[in-house]
Protein backbone atom coordinates (compact mmCIF):
# COMPACT_ATOMS: atom_id res chain seq x y z
CA UNK A 1 0.00 0.00 0.00
CA UNK A 2 1.16 3.54 -0.75
CA UNK A 3 1.17 6.13 2.04
CA UNK A 4 1.35 9.88 1.64
CA UNK A 5 2.52 11.73 4.78
CA UNK A 6 2.13 15.36 5.86
CA UNK A 7 4.22 16.81 8.70
CA UNK A 8 2.87 20.14 9.86
CA UNK A 9 4.76 21.04 13.01
CA UNK A 10 8.38 21.90 13.67
CA UNK A 11 10.98 19.62 15.22
CA UNK A 12 11.46 19.32 19.00
CA UNK A 13 8.65 21.80 19.80
CA UNK A 14 5.93 19.28 18.88
CA UNK A 15 6.11 15.51 18.81
CA UNK A 16 4.47 15.42 15.36
CA UNK A 17 7.66 15.01 13.32
CA UNK A 18 8.84 12.22 15.65
CA UNK A 19 5.57 10.33 15.39
CA UNK A 20 5.61 10.75 11.60
CA UNK A 21 9.16 9.39 11.48
CA UNK A 22 8.27 6.31 13.54
CA UNK A 23 5.15 5.75 11.44
CA UNK A 24 7.07 5.94 8.16
CA UNK A 25 9.81 3.66 9.48
CA UNK A 26 7.22 1.09 10.54
CA UNK A 27 5.34 1.38 7.24
CA UNK A 28 8.51 0.77 5.24
CA UNK A 29 9.45 -2.15 7.50
CA UNK A 30 6.03 -3.68 6.81
CA UNK A 31 6.66 -3.52 3.08
CA UNK A 32 4.50 -0.49 2.32
CA UNK A 33 5.66 2.35 0.09
CA UNK A 34 6.16 5.95 1.27
CA UNK A 35 7.19 7.75 -1.89
CA UNK A 36 6.91 11.24 -0.44
CA UNK A 37 6.66 13.17 2.82
CA UNK A 38 5.37 16.74 2.58
CA UNK A 39 6.44 19.32 5.17
CA UNK A 40 3.96 22.15 5.67
CA UNK A 41 3.31 24.95 8.20
CA UNK A 42 6.13 24.86 10.82
CA UNK A 43 6.94 21.38 9.55
CA UNK A 44 9.27 23.07 7.07
CA UNK A 45 11.66 23.72 9.96
CA UNK A 46 12.46 20.01 10.12
CA UNK A 47 14.57 20.51 6.99
CA UNK A 48 17.21 22.93 8.29
CA UNK A 49 20.80 21.68 8.32
CA UNK A 50 21.75 24.32 10.91
CA UNK A 51 20.16 22.65 13.94
CA UNK A 52 22.46 21.38 16.69
CA UNK A 53 20.43 19.39 19.21
CA UNK A 54 22.12 18.40 22.49
CA UNK A 55 24.23 15.21 22.30
CA UNK A 56 21.70 13.24 24.34
CA UNK A 57 18.76 14.11 22.07
CA UNK A 58 17.78 12.67 18.71
CA UNK A 59 18.75 14.65 15.60
CA UNK A 60 15.42 14.88 13.80
CA UNK A 61 16.77 16.36 10.57
CA UNK A 62 19.46 13.69 10.29
CA UNK A 63 16.92 10.91 10.94
CA UNK A 64 14.84 12.11 8.00
CA UNK A 65 17.85 12.70 5.72
CA UNK A 66 19.10 9.16 6.44
CA UNK A 67 15.66 7.72 5.76
CA UNK A 68 15.49 9.54 2.42
CA UNK A 69 18.92 8.23 1.47
CA UNK A 70 18.11 4.65 2.38
CA UNK A 71 14.59 4.45 0.97
CA UNK A 72 14.53 7.14 -1.70
CA UNK A 73 11.65 8.94 0.02
CA UNK A 74 11.06 12.36 -1.52
CA UNK A 75 11.15 14.95 1.30
CA UNK A 76 9.35 18.03 0.01
CA UNK A 77 9.27 21.34 1.85
CA UNK A 78 6.46 23.71 0.86
CA UNK A 79 7.96 26.81 -0.70
CA UNK A 80 5.30 29.26 0.49
CA UNK A 81 5.48 28.04 4.08
CA UNK A 82 9.29 27.93 3.88
CA UNK A 83 9.69 31.48 2.63
CA UNK A 84 7.70 32.93 5.53
CA UNK A 85 9.73 30.96 8.02
CA UNK A 86 13.23 31.38 6.58
CA UNK A 87 13.95 27.99 4.99
CA UNK A 88 15.85 28.36 1.71
CA UNK A 89 17.82 26.31 -0.77
CA UNK A 90 20.78 27.67 -2.74
CA UNK A 91 18.78 28.59 -5.84
CA UNK A 92 16.07 30.36 -3.90
CA UNK A 93 18.66 32.25 -1.82
CA UNK A 94 20.32 33.52 -5.00
CA UNK A 95 17.02 34.41 -6.61
CA UNK A 96 15.90 36.33 -3.49
CA UNK A 97 19.21 38.02 -2.85
CA UNK A 98 19.80 36.22 0.46
CA UNK A 99 23.40 35.60 1.52
CA UNK A 100 22.89 32.13 2.98
CA UNK A 101 20.75 29.03 2.69
CA UNK A 102 19.94 26.37 5.24
CA UNK A 103 18.19 23.37 3.67
CA UNK A 104 19.50 19.92 4.61
CA UNK A 105 20.53 17.04 2.36
CA UNK A 106 17.66 14.89 1.14
CA UNK A 107 15.08 17.70 1.35
CA UNK A 108 13.91 19.78 -1.59
CA UNK A 109 11.72 22.86 -1.79
CA UNK A 110 8.72 22.83 -4.09
CA UNK A 111 5.11 23.98 -4.40
CA UNK A 112 1.84 22.95 -2.78
CA UNK A 113 0.94 21.07 -5.96
CA UNK A 114 3.27 18.35 -4.69
CA UNK A 115 1.00 17.90 -1.68
CA UNK A 116 -2.10 17.53 -3.87
CA UNK A 117 -0.31 15.14 -6.23
CA UNK A 118 0.82 13.06 -3.26
CA UNK A 119 -2.75 12.90 -1.92
CA UNK A 120 -4.09 11.85 -5.34
CA UNK A 121 -1.39 9.23 -5.82
CA UNK A 122 -1.44 7.71 -2.32
CA UNK A 123 -3.80 5.01 -1.06
CA UNK A 124 -3.85 6.64 2.37
CA UNK A 125 -2.94 10.13 3.52
CA UNK A 126 -1.52 10.57 7.04
CA UNK A 127 -1.28 13.96 8.75
CA UNK A 128 0.92 14.61 11.77
CA UNK A 129 0.50 18.03 13.27
CA UNK A 130 -0.74 20.09 16.17
Amino acid at each position, binding site marked *: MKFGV*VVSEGPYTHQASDTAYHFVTAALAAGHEVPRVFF*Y*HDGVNVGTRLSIPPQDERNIQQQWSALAKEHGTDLVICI*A*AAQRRGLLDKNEAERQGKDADNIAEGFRIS*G*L*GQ*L*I*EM*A*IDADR*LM*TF*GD
Partner: protein
Amino acid sequence: MEDGVKKFLYVNRKAPYGTIYALEALEVVLIGAAFDQDVSLAFLDDGVFQLTKGQDTKEIGVKNFSPTFRALGDYEVTKLYVEKESLDERGLTADDLQDITYEDEDDDWAEKPSILIVSRSEMADVMAGQDVILSF
Protein backbone atom coordinates in the same frame (compact mmCIF):
# COMPACT_ATOMS: atom_id res chain seq x y z
CA MET B 1 -13.53 7.53 -6.90
CA GLU B 2 -14.50 7.70 -10.60
CA ASP B 3 -12.20 8.46 -13.55
CA GLY B 4 -9.28 9.14 -11.25
CA VAL B 5 -11.19 11.96 -9.53
CA LYS B 6 -10.87 11.82 -5.75
CA LYS B 7 -13.13 13.42 -3.21
CA PHE B 8 -11.03 15.88 -1.19
CA LEU B 9 -12.24 17.39 2.08
CA TYR B 10 -10.39 20.27 3.72
CA VAL B 11 -11.30 20.29 7.40
CA ASN B 12 -11.11 23.64 9.21
CA ARG B 13 -11.44 23.48 13.00
CA LYS B 14 -9.35 26.50 14.05
CA ALA B 15 -10.09 30.18 14.46
CA PRO B 16 -8.40 32.67 12.12
CA TYR B 17 -5.45 35.00 12.98
CA GLY B 18 -4.45 33.53 16.35
CA THR B 19 -2.64 30.88 14.33
CA ILE B 20 -1.81 30.60 10.63
CA TYR B 21 -3.59 27.30 9.95
CA ALA B 22 -6.73 28.91 8.47
CA LEU B 23 -4.71 31.03 6.03
CA GLU B 24 -2.38 28.23 5.01
CA ALA B 25 -5.34 25.86 4.56
CA LEU B 26 -6.85 28.37 2.13
CA GLU B 27 -3.57 28.46 0.22
CA VAL B 28 -3.78 24.69 -0.27
CA VAL B 29 -7.40 24.94 -1.41
CA LEU B 30 -6.51 27.53 -4.05
CA ILE B 31 -3.62 25.46 -5.44
CA GLY B 32 -5.61 22.24 -5.14
CA ALA B 33 -8.44 23.73 -7.23
CA ALA B 34 -6.25 23.41 -10.33
CA PHE B 35 -6.17 19.61 -10.02
CA ASP B 36 -9.79 18.92 -11.08
CA GLN B 37 -10.69 16.87 -8.03
CA ASP B 38 -14.06 16.88 -6.25
CA VAL B 39 -13.38 19.45 -3.54
CA SER B 40 -15.35 20.28 -0.38
CA LEU B 41 -14.51 22.36 2.67
CA ALA B 42 -15.75 21.61 6.18
CA PHE B 43 -16.01 24.24 8.90
CA LEU B 44 -16.67 23.00 12.40
CA ASP B 45 -15.67 23.80 15.97
CA ASP B 46 -13.73 27.11 15.97
CA GLY B 47 -13.32 26.78 12.19
CA VAL B 48 -16.73 28.42 11.77
CA PHE B 49 -15.16 31.67 13.02
CA GLN B 50 -13.14 31.82 9.76
CA LEU B 51 -16.30 32.73 7.84
CA THR B 52 -17.62 35.61 9.97
CA LYS B 53 -18.51 38.91 8.33
CA GLY B 54 -16.82 42.19 9.08
CA GLN B 55 -13.31 41.00 9.85
CA ASP B 56 -10.99 44.02 10.02
CA THR B 57 -7.37 43.19 10.80
CA LYS B 58 -5.85 46.64 10.31
CA GLU B 59 -5.01 47.18 13.98
CA ILE B 60 -3.34 43.80 14.50
CA GLY B 61 -1.19 44.31 11.39
CA VAL B 62 -2.06 40.91 9.94
CA LYS B 63 -3.42 40.37 6.43
CA ASN B 64 -7.22 39.98 6.26
CA PHE B 65 -7.75 36.88 4.15
CA SER B 66 -11.50 36.57 4.67
CA PRO B 67 -12.37 38.13 1.25
CA THR B 68 -10.61 35.17 -0.37
CA PHE B 69 -13.47 32.90 0.71
CA ARG B 70 -15.79 34.90 -1.57
CA ALA B 71 -13.46 34.22 -4.51
CA LEU B 72 -13.58 30.43 -4.09
CA GLY B 73 -16.48 30.14 -6.55
CA ASP B 74 -14.20 31.41 -9.34
CA TYR B 75 -11.97 28.43 -8.59
CA GLU B 76 -14.96 26.08 -8.79
CA VAL B 77 -14.80 25.45 -5.06
CA THR B 78 -18.50 25.65 -4.27
CA LYS B 79 -19.21 23.31 -1.36
CA LEU B 80 -18.53 24.86 2.05
CA TYR B 81 -20.15 22.71 4.73
CA VAL B 82 -20.70 24.58 8.01
CA GLU B 83 -21.78 22.71 11.12
CA LYS B 84 -24.90 24.08 12.77
CA GLU B 85 -24.06 22.80 16.28
CA SER B 86 -20.68 24.55 16.09
CA LEU B 87 -22.42 27.83 15.17
CA ASP B 88 -24.99 27.40 17.96
CA GLU B 89 -22.38 26.73 20.64
CA ARG B 90 -20.61 29.95 19.64
CA GLY B 91 -23.75 32.08 19.62
CA LEU B 92 -23.58 32.48 15.83
CA THR B 93 -26.23 32.12 13.15
CA ALA B 94 -25.91 31.84 9.37
CA ASP B 95 -26.50 35.62 9.22
CA ASP B 96 -23.19 36.22 10.98
CA LEU B 97 -21.31 34.56 8.11
CA GLN B 98 -20.21 36.14 4.85
CA ASP B 99 -22.37 35.67 1.77
CA ILE B 100 -20.37 33.26 -0.35
CA THR B 101 -21.84 32.33 -3.72
CA TYR B 102 -20.92 30.81 -7.05
CA GLU B 103 -22.37 30.91 -10.56
CA ASP B 104 -23.74 27.52 -11.55
CA GLU B 105 -22.63 26.80 -15.12
CA ASP B 106 -25.13 23.93 -15.34
CA ASP B 107 -28.04 26.23 -14.49
CA ASP B 108 -27.56 29.21 -16.79
CA TRP B 109 -24.95 30.72 -14.43
CA ALA B 110 -27.49 31.29 -11.69
CA GLU B 111 -25.92 32.65 -8.50
CA LYS B 112 -26.17 30.08 -5.74
CA PRO B 113 -24.97 29.93 -2.12
CA SER B 114 -21.74 28.01 -1.49
CA ILE B 115 -22.37 27.71 2.25
CA LEU B 116 -24.37 24.66 3.26
CA ILE B 117 -25.38 24.58 6.92
CA VAL B 118 -25.44 20.94 8.04
CA SER B 119 -26.06 19.13 11.31
CA ARG B 120 -23.26 17.36 13.17
CA SER B 121 -24.58 14.04 11.99
CA GLU B 122 -24.69 15.26 8.37
CA MET B 123 -21.13 16.55 8.78
CA ALA B 124 -20.08 13.08 9.94
CA ASP B 125 -21.65 11.69 6.74
CA VAL B 126 -19.80 14.23 4.60
CA MET B 127 -16.53 13.21 6.26
CA ALA B 128 -17.24 9.51 5.85
CA GLY B 129 -17.86 9.98 2.13
CA GLN B 130 -14.37 11.28 1.26
CA ASP B 131 -11.31 9.73 -0.30
CA VAL B 132 -8.84 12.23 1.16
CA ILE B 133 -9.18 14.34 4.29
CA LEU B 134 -6.75 17.22 4.81
CA SER B 135 -6.83 18.56 8.38
CA PHE B 136 -5.79 22.03 9.48
